[in-house]
């Protein structure tokens, strides 16, 4: 049942490297270069913004103002390497190693709760890998869920046994996804995972009642939390503070208010890189990670902010196209899962900076500082490229 990706070595006699790279059917020619360059541009822009947000913060940089510029760039390079590795391996081959990946992801999340885990900003979501190097296993959950659910849901359909996944399969897939999500426990990541699961179900062709059921379950869960007082008032206030900063004026409300001031004060062209008073004055918290968009808003203005939206739009547009043009359901689900992931995470991240979404600690893909997040999104790009490469050449 395994379908192998096209392998360039299968094509005739050995040619020169250049010829092989430029051949019509070569890997290089078959890559979606727009989908390579746009995330690269976002990563580069992100590096500048992270630089601006951190260069005055000696307590972070330890005196080297350029430290985060290089670290961000390095993360992007590692991310690109991971993407290339994924393309090299091919998403189809991942089907067979899927159980291994799944167990590995679970172990990593589990390790967070051992002495190896670290708490940063009140979230126990980090793992000390080496001194000064932490990873956030929850970022990999998203990849794992997408591939895992895709494997399960597409198996019978791609084998031609059924037109759509049957109920039993859908139930299995949901159970598979639910376990790591339940372990994560980080509100932002749980929200992204829920949206990814929804996207995956939609793309899999699962019966409408499953989709509807999932949406209703989410709504019911939210109502239950509200009605049974599972959250304290201050937690509710924090959640609602995005709409009314006065509810939590010293905490989240302060943050969202300062974020809004930073973005609003940018105007059309912004104050110029490194020139934002809100940014240099460090009025916005977590500015190099969760609130990175405020740096763009203040220093690069509407033009810069729109550019980021445009670049993200291009990434999503290419991803949607790849999903639509994918040749099998497995590939379709993977592409659609990545679309759901990127779209929601971007919307939530920028939306909270703009004060239209509640505050949840989620990075902006490619732009926010953070190694694990950067690796995860580039791996997703690798998956998309792999799906794209598998597509038959048009006549």
């Amino acid at each position: 049942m395994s379908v192998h990706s096209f392998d360039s070595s299968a094509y005739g006699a050995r040619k020169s490297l250049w010829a092989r790279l430029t051949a019509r059917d070569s890997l290089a020619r078959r890559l979606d270069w727009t989908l390579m360059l746009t995330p690269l541009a976002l990563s580069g822009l992100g590096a500048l913004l992270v630089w601006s947000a951190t260069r005055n913060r000696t307590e972070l940089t330890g005196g080297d103002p350029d430290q985060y510029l290089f670290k961000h760039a390095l993360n992007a390079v590692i991310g690109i390497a991971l993407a290339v590795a994924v393309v090299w391996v091919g998403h189809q081959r991942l089907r067979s190693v899927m159980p291994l990946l799944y167990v590995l992801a679970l172990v990593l999340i589990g390790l967070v709760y051992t002495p190896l885990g670290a708490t940063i900003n009140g979230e126990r979501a980090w793992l000390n890998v080496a001194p000064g190097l932490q990873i956030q296993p929850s970022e990999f959950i998203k990849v794992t869920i997408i591939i895992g659910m895709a494997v399960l849901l597409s198996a019978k359909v791609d084998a031609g046994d059924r037109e759509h996944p049957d109920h039993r399969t859908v139930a299995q897939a949901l159970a598979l996804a639910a376990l790591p999500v339940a372990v994560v426990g980080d509100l932002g990541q749980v929200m992204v995972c829920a949206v990814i699961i929804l996207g995956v179900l939609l793309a899999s062709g699962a019966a409408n009642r499953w989709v509807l059921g999932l949406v209703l379950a989410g709504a019911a869960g939210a109502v239950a939390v509200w009605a049974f007082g599972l959250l304290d008032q201050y937690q509710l206030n924090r959640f609602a503070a995005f709409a009314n900063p006065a509810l939590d004026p010293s905490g989240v409300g302060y943050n969202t208010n300062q974020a809004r001031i930073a973005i609003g004060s940018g105007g059309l062209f912004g104050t110029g890189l490194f020139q934002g008073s809100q940014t240099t004055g460090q009025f916005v918290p977590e500015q190099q990670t969760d609130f990175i968009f405020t740096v763009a808003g203040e220093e690069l203005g509407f033009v810069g902010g729109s550019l980021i939206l445009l670049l993200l739009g291009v990434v999503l547009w290419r991803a949607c196209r790849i999903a639509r043009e994918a040749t099998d359901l497995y590939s379709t689900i993977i592409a659609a899962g990545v679309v759901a992931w990127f779209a929601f995470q971007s919307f939530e991240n920028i939306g909270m900076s703009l004060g239209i979404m509640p505050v949840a600690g989620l990075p902006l893909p490619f732009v926010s500082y953070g190694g694990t997040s950067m690796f995860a999104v580039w791996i997703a790009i690798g998956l998309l490229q792999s799906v794209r490469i598998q597509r038959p050449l048009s006549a």
Partner: protein
Amino acid sequence: MSNIPETGRTSRVTIRLIGIQILVFSLLLTLGGRLWYLQIRNGDEYQEEAAGNHVQQVVQPAPRGTVYDARGVPIADSETRLVVSASRTELMKMDDDGEAVLARVAQVLGMTEEEVAHKIRLCDAETPQPCWNGSPYQPIPISDEATTQQALTIRERAEDFPGITAEPEAVRYYPAPYGAVTSQVLGYLSPVTDAEVQEAKDTDSPLLRSDQIGRSGIERTYDTALRGDAGVLRYEVDKLGRVLGMAESDEPVAGSSLVTSIDAGVQAVVEKQLDLAMKTARQQVDQITGRPYEADAGAAVVMESKTGRIVAMASLPDYDPNVWVGGIDSEQYAELTGENSNYPLLNRAIQGQAAPGSIFKVVSSMGAVNAGYAFDNTYNCSSSYSLGSHSFKNFESTGHGPITLGDALKYSCNTVFYRLGHQEWQKDGGLDPDKGEADEHLYQAARKFGLGERTGIDLPNEVTGRVPDRQWKREYWEANKESWCKTAEAAKAGDGEDGPSAYVAKLARENCLEGMKLRAGDSIIYAIGQGDLLVTPIQMATGYAAISNGGTLYDPTIGKAVISPDGRRIEEIKPSAHGELPADDKTIRQIDQALRSVATDGTAAWRFTDWPHEEIPLRAKTGTAQVYGKQTTSWLATYTEDYTVVMTISQAGTGSGASGPAVRNIYDALYGVGEGGEIDRDRALLPEPREALPKINPDGTIEAAPARPEVVTAWRDAEFG
């Protein structure tokens, strides 16, 4: 490249994928729209907020302008003092919030640690005074009375006193030349309140939280000019208040100076002589009450007759204006404003109101002439005037027979004016005049004389006094009838017995039923300046000055010129008039003659024996006003061609008796008149009004030409002859 058929995918998935795509792009559009809304549509608003966020201001106060007397002698000045201040931001950076440093400061300054802590704590709703009301980024003064030694200790051991500065700073100071405190006229300063900062925000002269502003007197009237514009150093700071750099800053612009018409020498004489008059009165026993006179308050005004400029203005009790400098403590404040303080903050020359007594007769005379009574006709000055069973007595119950209005003024004959008042009341329709019937000539004359309204002096909170005409009577009844009727009811129920309570009850009953009507008795006593009539000393001075100058009511002024700090711009405050006396030139001349005879042969003559009446013609009118339950108010209104002097002392007896010697001494000092009536111009403090401003040097400083101190002190300390 339509390869969808090749995917073999169902239309369900295809449709859903398209749905996802549409949803994704709507989300992006939403973000774009919101971004536009924040940055383009509301961008200005957020830019302002961001600016407020990251800029902190440190105020450099502008030196407040000096107030000079007419000779250029400073009467409100700024003095350099050594001020020890603490920077809160610096102290808060220390591990113990600067406690150790503050303890050392307290030790050096000889204060307790608690006192120091109180000085630098920030004011909020729950913090009592003392506390710091200004910006926490501003250096907070701990002491403005540091000695050079203390300041040097702090500056030399700077490493022991991080965040503490000891710098010379300008502090308001009232030098009181010749001992003339001029307290209520100068006023005082105190820190602005938040409300005032808000209010002044969008005006031409916005206030800073560290500003001191004038609270009363000329410090308040001329506050904007004197204050100048404080400089503002703007620091860009980060969230933790750490300074990142400098933003645009403004240099302080010094306040303008004010030259007043006050003559510090004359002021010293007037203050001291008024005080002496009051002390003397207290030695005398009041024949009516059998007690010594209380002489609890007094006021005196010396005004230039032809311009309305104030040469001296005194109000007793007074206070030392320097108590306000550097913040007033609660004990001192209670002394100035408490129930037992006798309210020294009041400027009784413009805020004290009392019945004028006989000095009002000049107004009645003008009203009578306007009503058709010829000035030179004769009117019966009987020993008493009867209305029904009540008999209104003449002063000391003596009659003078038929006399002119002029003689009625000279002898201060009450019965002549009683009769005029009664006749006018009858002509006006008595108790129930028809609409429009009442001409109210006597009351109209009072209003035109400037009574019942402010003179417009350049001092705040002047009061109006009142003219008790028919309209006032009705309005007053409307406002009070409820309480009167209640008192009357209560008195009836508890059948209030003898003593004042019976009198009060009777009065309340009368007022309750009839209080809206102007009674004959009201008009009769009104004609001699008694009853419900209330005037202020400044109103009487303005009116008498008008008789002196031929009829013009000038706005009394203290300020003479506002001079920019560099001395280049001089804004003179010209005399301006607000009305004319209700009398033609002839009547004014006749009244003037009559008042002259008061000083030479009439009721005031005994106080002006040996006065050189030929060289310096003096006019006077005495007044002794009765106040229910109190001793009589002494009034003396006088003028020459140059000056008008009005003095009043509450609960001190007669006009000539209590105020006479002091007024005489004031005139002696002004003109340099010796005991035998000889004029020594060399010793005259101000033989003629000073028109010119003091000399302004090219560097903007003002050159003082003070009176010789020994001359001033001699006049000031003159005994009553």
